[in-house]
C-alpha cells in the first residue's frame, strides 16, 4: 500500500464517523422509544394524557406534536413574508454598500444564541406582545376562538413569533440568492413591454424562482421545528390536556421544549425518559423529512 492509499483509507475512516453517528442516533432512539410504545400502543401518538407519576404512568405526545406544528406554522406565516420583503429590498432597492450592511445585520440575528432569544422573549418581548397585540385582540375579537384565552404573553403566539424572528436570516438569505439568479433578460423583457417594477417582481422574479422560494421556506420550517431553548422559555410549559392548542393565547408545549423542560426531572427507572426520547425521535423524523425536501429543491439553485 502506498502513502496515497493509506491517506485515502484514513480519510474514509474518519469521514465514516458521520455516517456511523447518524445510524447510531436513529437506532438508539428507536430502541429506547420501544418500551413506551410497547406500553401505550397507538395511544402514545394520539392520547393527550401525560402523567409521569409512578403506577399511574401515561404518556401521549399529541399535544406537543400539535404545539410544534402550530408554533412552526406561526413562524412561517409571519417570518416568510418579512423575509421575502427583505430579499426584495436587498435585490431591488439597495446598492452594493447598503446591501452589504443590511445583509450583515440580518445575518447577526442568526448569531444570537437561542437562549438569549428566550431571555429577551421572557422579559421584554412578552410585555410588548401582551400590551400591543394580545390584549387589544382579546378585547375586540375575544369572541373568536383563536383569541379566546385570557392573554399572559407566555403562549403559542410568543413562541411562534420568536421562531419567526429566528428563521428570518436563513429564509431571507436563500430567497435573496434565488432572486439574484433571475436572468436579466426576463426582467428587461417585462420592462420593455411597459411593465412596472411591480410587474417585474410579481410576474417575473416570483414566477421564475418559485421553487427556490419554496425551498427557502422549507429550510426555515426545518429550523423552526428543531428550535428548543427560546421556545421552552416563552411557551408557558403546559402539559397533558392543558397543552392542547385552544387559542393563540393559551400556554402550550412543543416536542423540543417538553424534552428540555422535563428531561432532568424524569426518573430513570420509569418510562418517563423513554417517553421523552420518543418525542425526540418524532422530532428527528420531522426535521429529516422537511430538511431533505428543502435540500433537494434548493440544491438545484446552487452554482
Amino acid at each position, binding site marked *: 500500500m502506498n502513502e496515497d492509499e493509506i491517506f485515502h483509507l484514513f480519510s474514509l475512516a474518519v469521514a465514516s464517523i458521520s455516517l456511523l453517528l447518524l445510524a447510531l442516533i436513529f437506532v438508539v432512539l428507536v430502541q429506547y422509544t420501544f418500551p413506551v410504545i410497547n406500553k401505550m400502543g397507538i395511544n402514545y401518538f394520539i392520547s393527550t394524557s401525560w402523567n409521569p407519576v409512578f403506577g399511574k404512568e401515561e404518556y401521549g405526545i399529541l399535544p406537543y406534536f400539535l404545539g410544534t406544528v402550530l408554533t412552526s406554522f406561526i413562524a412561517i406565516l409571519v417570518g416568510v*413574508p418579512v423575509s421575502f420583503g427583505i430579499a*426584495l429590498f436587498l435585490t431591488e*432597492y439597495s446598492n452594493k454598500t447598503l446591501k452589504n450592511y443590511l445583509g450583515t445585520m440580518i445575518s447577526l440575528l442568526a448569531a444570537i*444564541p437561542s437562549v438569549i432569544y428566550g431571555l429577551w422573549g421572557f422579559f421584554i418581548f412578552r410585555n410588548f406582545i401582551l400590551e400591543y397585540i394580545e390584549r387589544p385582540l382579546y378585547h375586540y375579537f375575544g369572541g373568536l376562538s383563536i383569541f379566546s384565552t385570557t392573554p399572559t404573553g407566555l403562549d403559542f403566539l410568543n413562541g411562534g413569533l420568536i421562531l419567526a424572528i429566528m428563521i428570518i436570516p436563513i429564509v431571507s438569505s436563500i430567497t435573496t440568492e434565488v432572486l439574484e439568479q433571475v436572468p436579466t433578460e426576463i426582467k428587461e423583457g417585462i420592462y420593455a413591454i411597459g411593465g412596472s417594477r*411591480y410587474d417585474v417582481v410579481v410576474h417575473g422574479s416570483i414566477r421564475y424562482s418559485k421553487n427556490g422560494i419554496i425551498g427557502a421556506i422549507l429550510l426555515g420550517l426545518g429550523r423552526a421545528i*428543531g428550535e*428548543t431553548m427560546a421556545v421552552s422559555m416563552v411557551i408557558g410549559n403546559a402539559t397533558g390536556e392543558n397543552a392542547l392548542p385552544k387559542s393563540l393565547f393559551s400556554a402550550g408545549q412543543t416536542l423540543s421544549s417538553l424534552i428540555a423542560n422535563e428531561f432532568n426531572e424524569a426518573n430513570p427507572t420509569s418510562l418517563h425518559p423513554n417517553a421523552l426520547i420518543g418525542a*425526540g425521535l418524532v422530532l428527528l423524523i420531522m426535521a429529516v423529512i422537511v430538511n431533505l425536501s428543502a435540500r433537494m429543491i434548493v440544491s438545484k439553485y446552487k452554482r
Partner: protein
Amino acid sequence: MISTISLRVKKKIQNTFLFLFASLSTVIAIIPLFSIIFEVVKNGIKAINLDFFILLPGPVGESVGGIANAIQGTLILVTLASIIGIPIGVITGIYLYEYGREKKSTLISFSVDLLYDLPSIVVGIFVYIVVVSPMHSFSTIAGALALAIVMIPIIAKTTEESLTLVPSTISEAGIALGIPKWKNIIFIVLNSAKSGVLNGIILAVTRITGETAPLIMTSLGSTFWFSGINKPINSLTLLIWRYAMQPYPSAVEKAWGAAFLLLLVALALNLIVKSGGKSK
C-alpha cells in the same frame, strides 16, 4: 387618455406598495436585533463587576457571588469539543472534496447533511443514552462530545466548500511537480483554502458556545468549579436558562450579565468571520 392616466396611477400605487412592503419588512427584522442588543447591554452591564468574573454563584436568592464557574465551564467544554470535533470535521471535508466522486462518498455526504440538520437536542438525547446512562453520571466529557457532534457537520461542509473554491490550477501544479496526492492536498490545496477553513471553524465554535439544549442532559450544569471530566460542569448558556426562570431578582440579573458576555463573544466571532470572508 383617461385609461393611460389611470394605468399610470395604478402602476405608481403598485410600485409604492412594493417599496413600502420591502422597506417595512427590513425595518421589522432589524428592530428585534437592536432591541435584543440594547436590552442585553442595558440589563447585563449592571451585573458586571469583579466578583461576577471571579466568584462562584452564591446561595440561591442572594445577590452575592459571580458566574466564574460558568465562564470556566464554557471554556473547557468548547475546548474539549474543538479538540474532538475540528480534526474530524476538517478530514471529513477533505475526504468529501478529494474522493467526492466515489460511490461511498454520496452516502457520507448525505449523512453529513442530515447530521447538520438534526435538532441539537436530539444529539443531547443520544449522548445521554450512550455516555451518561452507562456512566451513571452527567459529565463534562458527555457535554463536550455532544458539542463535538454538533460541530463536525458544520466544519466538514465549510471545509469542503472552501477546498472547492481553490483554483484547479493550484492543485494541478502540485501534481505536476510529482508530489504525492496526500501531501498535495494537505500542504498545497488546504493551505490555499486556509482562511475559508478557519472561518468555518470559527463559525462552528460560535455555534457551540451558544448551545444549550444538548448540554441539559449531558453536562447538566453545576454550582461548583470544574472537578474532572467525569463530573457535571456549568456553562454560560445553562446558567442563563436556569437563572432566568428563578423568582429572585439577583439571579435574573446574573442571567442578563451572562447573556451580555455570551452575546459579546458571539457577535465578535461572527463579525470576524464576516470580515474574513470579504478579504478573500
